[in-house]
């Protein structure tokens, strides 16, 4: 039984806007074990990115608890101890804007080292080492991000995340903006680093085919709530939640073998409601083919229907 490195309990993050309160994350609980890749999947408005940002401290939680290596970290990043920031790092979604266009690659990668008090020549050595690890040439040190390709920018972002030898890295859609061949290269590198450096990943993507091959366990979110959490192979071979099934059945795939493993076509209906106006009861009920009276009234609890497999659905927790 692996040790838990991150425990999230009933996390909530609400935003006050002109139109009302946006319940971006509305009470989710999950754990991440050491050395594993926990995948968080969901569409826009699901709250997966907000979850990541709250875990990293960019947002302060509205309610709930986040425990990292036994320490309570439910605060914003400014209040967190420096040692924590050394240990938890993040790779962002859009490589174009996650690197400051006005700074050189060297300056970008060495920033975490500077913040944590590493001396200048030590820093340079480390930056060169990191560039070598991500297979970028040394003469990239003086280049500006605008002069390198999208995939290479993301490699720089990864190098930056690895600079301080963290234990935990959040990856928010790290390859969504990239082509298939670049994606393959980067994901391979990430897996390599995970094995060599004993890293734990929180991996967020909407690309389910990618998730299938990357994550140890997967959680799917809808409108701020976690619908289902399961080990990867079970998540894909035996999806239980209607939303999971709907999502899996609409993935575009290219081989007939993949078509065969997809659940029966649950024709996706409707739009994702605005997070300001969440439906009553179970949030998914307006789009669900198996909706009952009860679903419109009560929010279902999260139930462990099989070891390690959790679902939030009335139909299944009966």
């Amino acid at each position, binding site marked *: 039984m692996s040790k838990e490195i991150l425990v999230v309990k009933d996390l909530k993050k609400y935003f006050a806007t002109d139109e009302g309160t946006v319940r971006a994350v509305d009470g989710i609980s999950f754990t991440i074990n050491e050395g594993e890749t926990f995948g968080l999947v969901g569409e826009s408005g699901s709250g997966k990115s907000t979850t990541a*940002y709250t875990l*990293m*401290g*960019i947002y302060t939680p509205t309610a709930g608890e986040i425990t990292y290596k036994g320490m309570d970290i439910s605060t914003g*990043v*400014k209040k*967190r101890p*420096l040692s924590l*920031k*050394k240990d*938890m*790092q*993040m790779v*962002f*979604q*859009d490589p174009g*804007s*996650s*690197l*400051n*266009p*006005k*700074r050189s690659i060297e300056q*970008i990668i060495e*920033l*975490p080292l500077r*913040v*944590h008090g590493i001396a200048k020549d030590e820093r340079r050595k480390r930056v060169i080492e990191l560039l070598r690890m991500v297979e970028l040439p040394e*003469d990239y040190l*003086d*280049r500006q991000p*605008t002069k390198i390709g999208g995939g290479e920018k993301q490699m720089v*972002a990864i190098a*930056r995340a690895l600079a*301080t030898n963290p234990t935990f890295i959040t990856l928010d859609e790290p390859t969504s903006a990239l082509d298939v061949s670049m994606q393959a290269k980067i994901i391979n590198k990430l897996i390599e680093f995970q094995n060599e450096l004993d890293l734990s990943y929180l991996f967020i993507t909407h690309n389910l085919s990618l998730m299938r091959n990357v994550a140890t366990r997967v959680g799917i979110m809808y409108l701020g709530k976690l619908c289902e959490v399961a080990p990867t192979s079970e998540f894909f071979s035996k999806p239980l939640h209607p939303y999971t099934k709907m999502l899996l059945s609409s993935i575009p795939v290219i081989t007939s073998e993949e078509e065969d493993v997809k659940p029966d076509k649950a024709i996706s209906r409707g739009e994702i409601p605005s997070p300001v106006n969440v439906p009553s009861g179970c949030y998914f009920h307006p789009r669900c083919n198996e909706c009952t009276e009860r679903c419109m009234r009560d929010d279902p609890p999260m139930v462990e229907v099989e070891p390690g497999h959790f679902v939030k659905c009335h139909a299944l927790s009966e």
Partner: protein
Amino acid sequence: MNTELLKERWRRNWYKFSRNPLSILGLAVVLSIIVIAIFAAFFAPYPEHAFVFVDFKNAKSPPSWQHLCGTDMAGRDILSRIFFGFRYSLVMAVSVLSVATPPGVLLGLIAGYMRDTWVDTAIMRVADVFLSVPSMVLALAVCSMLEPTLYNAMLAVTVMWWPWYTRLVYGAASSIKNEYFVQAAEVTGASTFHILFGEIFPNCLSTIFTKMTLDVGWVILIGSTLSFVGLGAQPPTPDLGTMVSDGSKYIPAQWWISLFPALFIVVIILGFNLLGDGVRDMLAGD
């Protein structure tokens, strides 16, 4: 290796700048004005006419080969005075902008980064107060409270100029602070100082610099207007605005006394505006 990349960058910048021939024109005009201003004594046909000089025999003579812009009511060569006048215009622009911009930018950075907090409200409301008073009125008010000198005119314009930069940088900073690279810096634990000056500020530079170049024209115009109404440089200083004002009594008969200084004010402003457009084009695609 660094210098190589720098040279490359400037070559590319020049390429972007030079695409529009008008920008080159602007640059040429501005460079000429600067050179003439510095070496006015060399370029002016009658350098001794610049300040105190009288020659009533030649007073009010129309433009001729000896006096390309004619002479004024005291017999001074207008062209020479104009060349010396460039100095005052440029000094005005440089001093006002170098004093007004830093505090304006700093406040804008802080307010933008701390958007939607009391700091934001405090700074921006103060800026709003300054911006809501019509600039000329404010400048006039300051000038009339103090002695009318060029120095005080510069002070007046500086006082009302800084909030424009605050507003400009506020807009830029508040959107830049949401960029992923700023959040990456926060997640890493960078200090607020670093985030403001190391991350956000470099991305505001092009907007600031473009505005400064375009502002030169405005500052000179306002300065000239202040001199025109008698609140800036006093005669016999060959300030362009003062010259227009002095010559206004002689319109239309001796039209050249006001016209040429006014024309050159237009030329300076136009030159800086064209240059500013070119600077904007050059920095835009970054």
